[in-house]
């Protein structure tokens, strides 16, 4: 509600409007993203114990991410399509490289050290997987046939398993759902989806067998957090206390007691929603969720206005994955989903996910602002 009124008030002068159009920026989306970024600083300031250093570092990352978004928005979507397979291939190779290095280093490894920064191939694959699936399916008539479905499924499973092996269950889940989203938007039949759902449920014991101990612990904890109140369950219990004690109106900005007293762990990263909920209450939570939904609605609108198959599959998948992000994070913080390492998009402290997310929005903007060029295909 808030954003609608704001966006109406925000009528950019024609000069700026022209400029933004030249930059291939989608204004409603930009406003939504900026609002949520500002909100992120507000919450982070409180969650970090009023640490300006944290804000400065986050500011630098957000700046970089917005820059990348603008740059990608400028790229003709035809280029994304053209290089989809190549980028996906590179991503897979890098994932394998990370796994091998991890084997040598004996431990979980998720990044490649490039000297000046640490690059996480799993972040890149979050975008290149839907690109790859969208490209592959767009080459064939829709709805996809069994053979194409099969190949697309394999293309999703490979990066998912590689990331799950790192082990990074949260990211693996996001990659899998981004690929699955493409299949869904491509018109995977409902009956098949139900069948897959049942099969997956049947496969759960098998998956359980392959899970690492700490991953099993998380599931245990999720099913019964009270069973381990000193360890894993501690996060969930404390997070529920923080959220519940916030009530309808919240304790006000900087008013959270649970994170300050050090009861709430990871309060500025994965569990930041608990701080938000404690300080801004149910009203704040609904408001934040609405803001997310408006962004997602805008993205889905962009997808619906796109004629090119590749572009709209990719756009809709990115939009849906963004929602999965929100849902999984809030779901785990409020104790309805198991704890997997997924940050609250655009709000949690930490750089890599923000950069990837805004890169995705850059692609969406590119698709929206370059539509004309692709209608003939």
């Amino acid at each position: 509600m808030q954003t609608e009124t704001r966006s109406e008030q925000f009528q950019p002068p024609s000069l700026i409007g022209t400029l933004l159009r030249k930059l291939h920026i989608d204004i409603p989306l930009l406003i939504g993203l900026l609002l949520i970024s500002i909100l992120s600083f507000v919450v982070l300031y409180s969650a970090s114990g009023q640490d300006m250093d944290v804000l400065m570092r986050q500011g630098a990352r957000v700046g970089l991410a917005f820059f990348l978004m603008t740059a990608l928005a400028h790229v003709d979507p035809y280029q994304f399509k053209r290089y989809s397979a190549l980028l996906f291939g590179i991503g897979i190779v890098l994932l394998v490289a990370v796994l091998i290095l991890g084997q040598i280093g004996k431990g979980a490894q998720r990044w490649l050290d490039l000297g000046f920064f640490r690059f996480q191939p799993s972040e890149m694959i979050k975008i290149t997987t839907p690109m790859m699936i969208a490209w592959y399916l767009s080459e064939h008539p829709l709805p996809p046939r069994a053979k194409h479905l099969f190949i697309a499924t394999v293309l999703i499973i490979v990066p998912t398993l590689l990331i799950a092996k790192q082990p990074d269950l949260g990211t693996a889940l996001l990659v899998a759902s981004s690929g699955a989203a493409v299949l869904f938007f491509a018109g995977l039949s409902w009956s098949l989806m139900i069948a897959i759902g049942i099969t997956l449920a049947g496969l759960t014991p098998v998956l359980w067998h392959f899970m690492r101990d700490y991953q099993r612990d998380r599931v245990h904890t999720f099913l019964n957090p009270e069973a381990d109140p000193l360890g894993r369950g501690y996060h969930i219990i404390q997070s529920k206390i923080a959220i519940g004690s916030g009530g309808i109106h919240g304790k006000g900005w900087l008013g959270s007691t649970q994170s300050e007293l050090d009861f709430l762990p990871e309060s500025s990263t994965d569990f930041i929603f608990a701080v938000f909920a404690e300080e801004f209450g149910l009203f704040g939570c609904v408001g934040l969720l609405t803001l997310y939904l408006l962004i997602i609605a805008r993205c889905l609108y962009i997808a619906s206005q796109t004629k090119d198959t590749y572009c709209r599959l990719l756009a809709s998948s990115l939009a849906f994955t963004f929602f999965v992000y929100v849902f999984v994070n809030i779901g785990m913080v409020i104790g309805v989903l198991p704890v997997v390492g997924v940050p609250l998009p655009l709000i949690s402290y930490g750089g890599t996910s923000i950069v990837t997310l805004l890169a995705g929005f850059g692609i969406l903007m590119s698709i929206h602002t370059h539509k004309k060029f692709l209608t003939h295909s």
Partner: protein
Amino acid sequence: MSRFYTIKDNRVENRLFLNRIIAAFILILLLSSGLIVRLVYLQIVGHEHYATLAKDNSIKIEPLVPTRGIIYDRHGKVLAENTQSFSLELIPEQIPDLDDTLIRLQKLLDIPEDKIEQYQRQRKRQKRFTSTALLIGMTDEEIAKFAVVRPYFPGVDIKTRLVRNYPYKELAAHVLGYVSRINEAEMKTLPAAEYRGSTHIGKLGIEAAYETQLHGKTGYAEIETNVQARAINTVNSVAPDPGANLYLTLDIDLQKTAYDALEEFNGAVVAIEIKTGGVLVFASRPGFDPNPFVVGIANDAYQALQASDSQPLYNRALRGLYPPGSTIKPFLALAGLEYNAIGYENKHFCPGYYQLPNVTHKYRDWKKGGHGSVNMNEAITESCDVYFYSLASVLGIDRMHRFLQQFGFGEKSGIDLIGEKTGLLPSQEWKRQQKKQAWYPGETLITGIGQGYLQVTPLQLARATATLANHGKVVTPFLVDKIISAHSTSPGPETHLGALALSADNVNKVITAMANVVHSDHGTAKSIGKGIPYQIAGKTGTAQVFSIKQDEKYNENSIEFKLRDHALFIALAPVHDPKIAVAVIAEHGGHGGSVAAPIAGKVIKQFLEESHAD
């Protein structure tokens, strides 16, 4: 395979896609509503409940620390136990003025300054609401003094804690190790949940190697507290899972015999049960009393241990590196036979020295004037150096390296302790890499009598002897025989038994020669062979600590103790069916035959008599 070009039907695709967008949005709205329902439940329905919890003044979760597992020896004697002890504990959150309280307590109970400092360090690592001990092991008098004034000390209480106790003190300190306060570095790496209430952790020996099993699983209690934050009621609790008890293969009585037999010498004795690999004796002398480490050893006492010349903290059996001296000879003799480099009966003339062709340097025998003409049996019995110079020269360093490696020299034995040394088994390759130098033939010769670069641990020596006694079936030494927890009994470490391809005949020849070391009139350890109803096969060794010049005579009496040779002995018994292998090192003991062999003799005697009685 024929290929069809299907024409894309844009209208169908468009409709399908729009439907899916709408379906997706509906799904998103539904799931979001689900989140909101849950938030309503937490923030409206559950608000009061959670708000009370958040005030953190009614219910606290307290860890219930599991009792640490007990360590027993092979006959069930207690080596490490938990005894009750009273400690003075403070909960900073409940103390109005901590500094003032500490000053008053210090005056009341006469607490030394370093205890206060230790407490302060400890406290800073803990949450404000956790209880931290200021004094451990309070005397009755201290308890009485505090009890009287307790009302004036809110947040201070006497608690009973279990304190680890090692009844055998210095006798088994190295093998058992000890528990001590968790330090900052450990705090970071330990699983926080499991150690939330634990104060101590195994630092060395069995206590460290089996930390996970001994520690057990932490339980918890949800405790309701009153306004003064004193516990008034336990709402709910899950009992801790006590740590598993360990049954060692160690025989503490045998260990005592070995330790006492070393008398004034520093050194180590390792005895292994050949058939299993179970370690019977793992003694390192001097030992130290591990008990002060449990309660926090005073700084000056610790400094004294560290600074002592005899290095009591040093686990010689596991980490001591010594030249094996002549104890290496049986293994090299076997190498000679296995590689067909020499015949058992081949005679070699020993004039008292050995010379390489075209080199003037004389490699001397320990016996001035030499042993005359000796075969392998005589060379081992009398420990003729010249015979082994010659054998080493024929074998060459790389074959010696390869053969000795099979017996576990130059590598860890895999015993279930942390910090084992690998020793050093030289080769041409090793010298090129480590010293950037070529290998000299003279170095091969001295390796042949167990000197030079060669370095072994007492454990390696005992293991190699056991493997020899086992006719090449490799023995992996281990200490923990059984791990018994509340739910299960499991065996100790897995021992992977490989077997060396050795000729039984060759092994028997070498063992026979070793039996002559103890039982023939010329044997270097004949003193221990008298009056025993079984046969021991052994080999003496005397390891040079420093080298004597060409023309100097080694005079035991005139030489400073620190420079005297180390005395070594390896043995297996009984010869017809070996049960025990022993390695003894007495630092600066002089002669292997007179000092080290009797120690092994005592250990073997006691073990065989005991197992006979069984």
